[in-house]
């Protein structure tokens, strides 16, 4: 019983220890929520396949700190996004802005879909034409009867 109590106590104690360690992150839940919402659609410059919200790179940690501070200063989401774009370019945005150089990016998939649909229509039409039932000519009917007779005879 004593050991169980001691173990339980140790567990509880470690729990509070962990909680204390995480405190600075969750100091202000509202700020944290907004920060994560903003940074989860941004690219980390250091490890480019990770979002700024998820990355543990030094720069990402610093940038999250900057963004947290800007939120506390009452900056709008747009101001924060502009801050990032001014420094790192549109590349930081996972959703690039719509402009002449990104039209292909935005509409490319629809273009491919249109091509695919056009190809499908052409293919189906062609196949439909091939499958159309045609009446046999007199010669073909004679040949078919001939073949059937041979089969009968062979059996």
């Amino acid at each position: 019983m004593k050991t169980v109590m001691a173990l339980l106590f140790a567990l509880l104690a470690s729990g509070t220890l962990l909680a204390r360690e995480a405190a600075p992150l969750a100091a202000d839940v509202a700020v944290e929520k907004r920060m994560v919402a903003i940074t989860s659609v941004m690219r980390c410059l250091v490890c480019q396949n990770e979002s700024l919200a998820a990355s543990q790179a030094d720069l990402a940690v610093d940038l999250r700190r900057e963004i947290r501070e800007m939120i506390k200063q009452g900056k709008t989401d747009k101001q924060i996004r502009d801050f990032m774009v001014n420094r790192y370019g549109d590349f930081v945005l996972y959703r690039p802005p719509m402009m002449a150089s990104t039209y292909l990016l935005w509409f490319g998939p629809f273009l491919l879909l249109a091509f695919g649909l056009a190809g499908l229509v052409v293919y189906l039409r062609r196949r439909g034409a091939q499958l159309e039932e045609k009446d046999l000519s007199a010669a073909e009917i004679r040949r078919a009867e001939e073949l059937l007779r041979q089969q009968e005879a062979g059996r």
Partner: protein
Amino acid sequence: MRRFLIPLGLFVVLVGFLAWGLKPGYDPHEVPSPLINKPAPNFDLTQLADPKLKFSPQEMRGRVWLLNVWASWCVSCREEAPVLMRFAQSGAAPLYGLDYKDKRDDAQAWLARFGNPYVLNAFDGDGRVGINYGVYGVPETYVIDKAGIIRYKQIGPVTDAALRDKILPLLKELNQ
């Protein structure tokens, strides 16, 4: 025969895309800086050698100069050090350093070990100035013109080839 032309065409296009990705010198990690042809962000930092002295890019108005972002923990900065040494000796342009997210003692020891090509170093301990300059991989080097406009950014170590092909011709042009 025609049946094979379509897959062959697609294959050639695919190979073209792959070849583009393998182009020598192409680094997908390199992000073009939006700060090119924009004013260099101002700052007012203490100097690495003496915390009582300050340095601001404002002081460099009217001169073409280089700002090299480095740190004692940065491995490719060691590779770059001899190139910068030679550049500083050539006197093509004054070279200033921005010691990024570093400790003063570590940085001083690094300079003693790998050489100090800098006129002076500004000390950016918490990396805030680095963020304003869009630094995301150290070393990075900025060429700043007489009006305080950033004209070129070298991402990664300055190499002899980069000096010869880009930086030195640009300095010549800007100094005219």
